[in-house]
C-alpha cells in the first residue's frame, strides 16, 4: 500500500514537473536594451573591421605605381607604344651596323670615294659612280 502511494506521489510530481517546465518555457527572458545595443555594436564593429581588411587586401593586390620620372619620360615620348617603336628602331640600326657588308663599311670609312674617283676618272661615267657598291654586290651574287 505504501509502495502504491509512493508511485502515485511520483506520478503527481512528474506531472507537476512537466507543468513547471511549461511555465518556464512560457517565461521569456527578454534582453535589456543595453545588451541588444552592445550586440549590435559588436556586429557593426565586425562589419567595419572586415571592410578595412578587404580594402587593405585589395590595395596590396593592385600593381605598384612606377617612378614618376620614368612615367613622365614615357608620356613625353608618346606612350609605351612609341617607346617600343623607338627601341625597335634602335636595335635594328645596331644590328645593321654590326652585321654590315664590306661595301657599307667602305662607304662608312670613305675608302669607296677613292675607288669611285678612280672609276670616274677612268670611265667617266658619273651615273655608274652613284651606285657602285650595289653593282659590286650584284656581281658577287
Amino acid at each position, binding site marked *: 500500500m505504501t509502495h502504491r502511494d509512493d508511485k502515485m506521489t511520483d506520478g503527481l510530481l512528474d*506531472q507537476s*514537473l512537466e507543468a513547471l517546465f511549461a511555465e*518556464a518555457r512560457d517565461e521569456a527572458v527578454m*534582453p535589456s536594451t543595453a545588451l541588444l545595443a552592445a*550586440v549590435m555594436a559588436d556586429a557593426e564593429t*565586425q*562589419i567595419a573591421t572586415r*571592410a578595412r581588411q578587404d580594402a587593405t587586401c585589395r590595395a596590396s593586390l593592385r600593381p605598384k605605381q612606377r617612378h614618376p620620372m620614368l612615367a613622365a619620360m614615357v608620356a613625353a615620348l608618346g606612350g609605351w607604344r612609341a617607346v617600343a617603336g623607338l627601341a625597335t628602331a634602335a636595335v635594328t640600326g645596331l644590328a645593321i651596323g654590326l652585321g654590315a657588308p664590306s661595301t657599307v663599311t667602305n662607304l662608312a670609312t670613305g675608302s669607296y670615294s677613292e675607288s669611285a674617283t678612280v672609276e670616274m676618272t677612268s670611265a667617266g661615267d658619273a651615273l655608274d659612280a652613284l651606285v657602285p657598291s650595289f653593282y659590286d654586290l650584284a656581281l658577287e651574287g
Partner: protein
Amino acid sequence: MDMPFDALSDVSDDALLIAFGNGDAASARALTLRLTPKVLGYAARLLRDRAEAEDVAQEAMLRLWKIAPEWRQGEAKVTTWLYRVVTNLCTDRLRKKRGNALDEIAEPEDDRPSQEAVMIQRERIDALNAALATLPDRQREAVVLRHIEGLGNPEIAEVLDISVEAVESLTARGKRALTQALAAQRDRLGFEDDAS
C-alpha cells in the same frame, strides 16, 4: 518566440548570417533580435545570474559575428552552434566559480529574499531553477535543452557532443533528481493542486 521588429522573420538564420558575413547590417539586427533572447535565456538558466548571463550572451553573439564570413549554408544549424558556445562559456564560468570541484553537486541556493510577496508562478519557477542548480552540469544542460528550450535529443547530442543515448540517460536522471529536489517543497509550490 515572437520577436517584434524582426523585419526579416521569413529568412532563415543561415541566410541572415551569410548576408551579415557579406556586410549586411540589417541581417545583423534581425539575428540580434531573434537569437539574443534564446541565448540569454539559456545562459540565465545555466548560470542563475542575470549579469553573467548577459556577458555570456554578448560573447556568444560576438563569436557568431566573427565566424559569419566562413559560415556555409546547410552545414550546421545556427542555434545548435550557439547553444554549444553558450554551454561551453557557462561551463567555464561555473568551473571558475567552483574551483576544482567541477562535478560536485551544489547545494540549492537559498539566499534569495522571501517570495511571499511575489506571484506564485514566479516562486514556482524560482524553485525549478533552484532545483536545476542542484544537478550536475551535464544533467542540467540536457534537461534545460530538452524540456525548456525544446530541442530534440539528436540536436542536444550535437550541442553537448555526446551520443543520443547519453542524452536520454542524462535527461532521465536529471528529471528524477529534480523530482526528488522538488518533492520537499510540493506543499509550498502547490504541486498536488496541479495534479488534481
